[in-house]
Every structure is written in C-alpha cells, then in structure tokens.
C-alpha cells in the first residue's frame, strides 16, 4: 500500500469522524444497554437452565465416551470425517495440527494476505464467500457431532452424507471460488454469490437429512446424587444390595453367617468405633474397591474387576459415615422410616411395606447368583413363587408358613432327614425387630395384598368399644 493510498484512507476516515457521533454518550450508551442485556441473560441462564450434574471423575471407568466442550465439537467431527478418507486419513497430524494450524495462520496474517485497500462488501466477494462457507461448515459440523460416522449396523450412508456436507461441498466450492476470482476473471459478483449460496443451502439440506435419518440414541441417564441426603439414600440402596449379606443391615455383624464359603468367618463390625474412628473415607473407599481378598471380601471397584463405579462407592462410604459414625450428625431428612407405621387392624401391602423391608434386609442374599435355596425376592411374583421350598413357604392365612417361622427364629428341618436344616433362621445374622416381624405376619395372614389399594380394602377399622 503506497503513501498516497494511506493518505486517502486517512482523509476518508476524517470525513466520517466529522459527521459522526461522540464516544460519550452515544457509543457508551449502546455498550451499556448490551452489557445490561448480557448480564440479565447470564442470570436467567444460571437460574432457570443451570448446569446438569455430572459424576465425579473416574479414571478407571474407561467406558465413558469423551466429548470436548461444545466449541471444539466441530473439530471433533472433522477428525472423524477426515479419518474416513482412504490413505490420507491415516496421517492424523494433518487433521489435528496442520489443517487447524494453517487455518489459524491464515486468519492471523489476514491483513497481510488481503492487502487491497477495498473494504466495501461488494468488492470483497471472495473473502466474504469463503468465510461464509467456513462458518456454515463449522456450525453444521457442530450440529452433526452427535451422529456417528459409521452406524451400528455397519452402514456408511450417514458417514458419506456427512463427509459430503462437511468436507466435499465446502472444499469444492472454495476451489471454484478461487478459480472464479483468479482464473475466470470475468465471473460476475452475482455468479459468485449464487455459487456460495447454493453451496451453503446444499450443505444445510444434506446435514438436515443426516439428522433426520439418524436414529435417536437411547440416552442412558446416569443417576448422580447431588445433595448429601441423596447421596446417603443412594449409598443406603447400594449397601443393602451389596454389603448386607456379610456385614448386616446395621453393620454390626462380627461373625458371618449364611454366606457361601465364609460361614463362621470372624470380622470386625464395620459400625464399630475401631473401624469408624480409624479408617478415613479414602481408606474405606480403597477397602471397598480393592476388597480384602485374604479375609474373603471380593473387590467391588471397577478398577479391580468389580461392578461399582467410583461415585457408587463414594455414596456407600457417605452412607456408612453418616449413619454409624456418631461424630457426624445425619440430616433428619435421611432418617425417614422404612415404612409408615401400621395402625391397629391395618393390613400392610407389598408395595408400601414389604418391598422396602425386603430391600433393606433380604435382597442382598435373596437375589440371583447367591446361595439362597433359589428363593428370590426382587419382586412380588418372585417372593410368592420361587424357591426350592416354595410349597410351604407362604400360605395365605397360615401362621405355620415357613417364612413366618424362620423370621421368628424357628428353623425348618427336613421332614425326611430330621437332623438336616432345610431353612435356617432368617436373617442369619440378627433377628428382625418385632414390629417388622409383625408386618410379615399381618401381610401373610391377610392374603398378601400387592398394592396399597388392595390392602386398604382389607382394613378392618377397630370398632369403638362401648
């Protein structure tokens, strides 16, 4: 740019300045209005949209599907599409380093590449068209980022369509635009604008097709317990399934009973001060995750072959800490009773009363894969119909039902071999409290109603004594 051009530019600017406005108050006013708008928008978003909860980082959970922040999703999709290109697609640094590097390089050095003094849009059709295609491409790649390049059934159709919309059309169009600018110099602005528009529209249409054809993936919502009370409840549920069979529903078991291979094994009760005062949360986490193989405790953490994620073990530790460590005050909300207490004459139902009791005290052993005489208790049907000894287990109205006998500390002997125990006392570690035994008795004596509605119909209110 020579001195004369520079002088012309400066004079032109002087003229614009003189017929313009003032920074204060005109520009600042507009700035303040926009800033206020942004401020309000931020508060609205923070209050009404919020942030979706995520689980704690779990380095051992390699099944998590990584995704970058949204403003890098276009690059993420670009890498996937680039990798589909035969031969060239194998050289990954071209897509991760070279192409983005060149793009940023061109953008940075733009004033030295686009050196002409022209500023009017009409005289800058080439750069504006190229930028339009690139921005359209970036936006579309971002929207397409959730669509896999190869479908589950191996079909490559969606991948090819995406490559067309995201790579082929933009590249071809840009080559065309360059040719029109530098080789076929007679090409009018109109033609170039039409080319760009058609390219952009076709990119949008193909992308739209892909999004329409793409089957909605089943989003697995992982439960994240956010508040302390939620974490305690989550931990309680997990504990009752995985831990109760050896440690008891209240952590007090000192000698394991009723567990295959560990019968009679002596352990320190985990609700004791010995354990709770000396084992920190992280140590407790490691014990649960790694297990105590020498003492018979299998690993529970995913990192060591178990099935619990880091967050799940954290919830169990939180539950143990707040429930049994008397130095910590458990929030009142977390101490809600297992089931609503029964009124005189009220009949319990499976839905409201039996199910939570079974979940807390029985399910740890009486689920698939454990030694339990094949008696499973995960559902109403299972409780009534499964088990090696199902014939005498639950009989409506019969107080000699095996289930009622064993929870009242009477073992059931084998009628054919009178010194063999068929069903031991349940639960093996510690007897149920009388009010819980009472719930079972009432339930079976009144015909095992499943729903609260059915149970309510059986309710005989006590008549007022005269």
């Amino acid at each position, binding site marked *: 740019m020579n001195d004369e051009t520079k002088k012309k530019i400066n004079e032109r600017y002087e003229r614009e300045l003189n017929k313009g406005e003032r920074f204060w108050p005109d520009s600042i006013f507009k700035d303040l209005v926009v800033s206020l708008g942004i401020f309000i928008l931020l508060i609205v978003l923070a209050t009404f949209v919020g942030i979706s909860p995520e689980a704690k980082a779990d*380095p*051992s*959970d*390699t*099944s998590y*599907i*990584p995704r970058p922040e949204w403003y890098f999703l276009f690059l*993420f999709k670009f*890498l*996937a599409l*680039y*990798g*589909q290109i035969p031969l060239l*697609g*194998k*050289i*990954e640094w071209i*897509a*991760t380093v070279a192409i983005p590097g060149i793009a940023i390089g061109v953008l940075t050095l733009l004033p030295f590449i686009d050196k002409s003094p022209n500023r009017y849009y009409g005289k800058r059709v080439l750069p504006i068209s190229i930028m339009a295609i690139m921005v359209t491409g970036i936006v579309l790649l971002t929207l397409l980022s959730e669509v*896999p*390049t*190869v479908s*589950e*059934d*191996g079909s490559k159709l969606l*991948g090819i369509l995406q490559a067309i919309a995201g790579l082929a059309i933009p590249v071809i169009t840009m080559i065309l635009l360059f040719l029109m600018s530098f080789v076929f110099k007679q090409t009018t602005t109109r033609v170039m604008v039409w080319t760009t528009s058609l390219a952009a529209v076709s990119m949008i249409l193909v992308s739209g097709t892909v999004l329409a054809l793409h089957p909605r993936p089943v989003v697995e919502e992982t439960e994240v317990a956010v508040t302390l009370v939620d974490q305690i409840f989550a931990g309680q549920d997990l504990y009752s399934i995985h831990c109760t069979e050896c440690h008891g529903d209240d952590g007090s078991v000192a000698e394991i009973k009723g567990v295959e291979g560990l019968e009679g094994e002596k352990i320190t009760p985990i609700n004791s001060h010995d354990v709770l005062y000396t084992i920190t949360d992280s140590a407790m986490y490691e014990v649960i995750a790694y297990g105590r193989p020498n003492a018979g405790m299998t690993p529970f953490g*995913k*990192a*060591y*072959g178990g099935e619990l994620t880091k967050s799940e073990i954290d919830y169990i530790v939180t539950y143990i800490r707040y429930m049994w460590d008397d130095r910590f005050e458990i929030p009142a909300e977390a101490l809600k009773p297992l089931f609503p207490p029964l009124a005189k004459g009220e009949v319990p139902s499976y839905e409201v009363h039996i199910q939570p009791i079974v979940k807390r005290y029985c399910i740890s052993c009486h689920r698939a894969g454990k030694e339990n005489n094949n008696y499973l208790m995960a559902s109403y049907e299972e409780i009534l119909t499964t088990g090696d000894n199902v014939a005498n287990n639950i009989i409506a109205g019969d107080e000699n039902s095996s289930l009622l006998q064993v929870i009242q500390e009477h073992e059931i002997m084998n009628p054919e071999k009178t010194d063999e125990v068929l069903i031991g006392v349940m639960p093996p570690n510690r007897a149920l409290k009388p009010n819980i035994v009472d719930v079972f008795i009432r339930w079976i004596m009144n015909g095992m109603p499943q729903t609260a509605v059915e149970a309510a119909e059986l309710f005989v209110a006590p008549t007022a004594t005269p």
Partner: protein
Amino acid sequence: MSGSNEISRRDFIKVTTGIVGGLIGVAIGLPSISYLIDPALREGGKDAWLSIGKFEDMQIGTPYPFSFTQVRVNGWERTSSSFGGYAIRKSDDSKGLLILNSRCTHLACTVNWNEEADGFLCPCHDAKFSKDGKVLDGPPPRPLDVYDEFRLSEDGHIEIFFKAG
C-alpha cells in the same frame, strides 16, 4: 569528553543495561522454563508381570475383557490409572492367546467389543477394528497394540508383561 576511544555515558549505560538485563533474564528465564517443564522430562514406572484373569475363564473365540490398575507417582500424588484390553483365546493351548490393548491407536480412546458389529468400535471417531485388532474402518493408522509377552502362572492365571513408560 569527545575522545574517539571513549564511550559516552549514554552509550555506556545502554550497553550495560542490555548486558545486565540479559543476564538477569537468563538467570530467571532458564530456571523458570525448567520449573514448568520438569515433569515432562521424567521417566517413571516399573515393569511388572500383571494378572489379567484365569485362563479357564477365557472361552475360545470370544474376546475376554480384562483391566488392571497401575499406580504411578506423579508429583506428590500416587495416581492410579486403569488399563484394559481383550484376550482372545485361539486354542486349548495357553500359548494360543491374542492379547490386545484396548487403547485406540488413533487418539487413545478406549475401544469396546461389539457383538453385532463383530469388531471393536471406538466411540470417539468411529474407528472399527476386526477381532484380530486390524483396522477395518476409520482414522487409526495401525492395528491395536498386542501384549506379546505373557505366561501362564502356577495358579492358572494369565499374566502379561507390562512395560512402564
């Protein structure tokens, strides 16, 4: 003082400031850079024989997933990282095992065995590997890495030799 061999005060101060400034810059700069990149210059970890599971649990033809954890010291923290892979038993012989690393050779996401697709799929950029770990589709430049040093231990476990670093 206008003698030809004498420097003016201005020039003397310019030069001295330049030299001293440069020296201070180096004295601060080099240790600072070293401070920042120090962890990148360390080699760490230990080689080890690690159990990946019982040989009898591995069925012929079905990829058997395994994982193990290695603890490495990074700075002041004992970081445990998990690694995983798939062991495919080819025959009755304990030597007939193909043990693949489940790290995708493209950008190190974890691949998962997919029964329907009959291959390992990578969820990051849609790579697909055959049961033998060869690249069928997608950006990976080479097949899945193989743990070729392994042995059958006395108690029936398959152990792989894990190289550190």
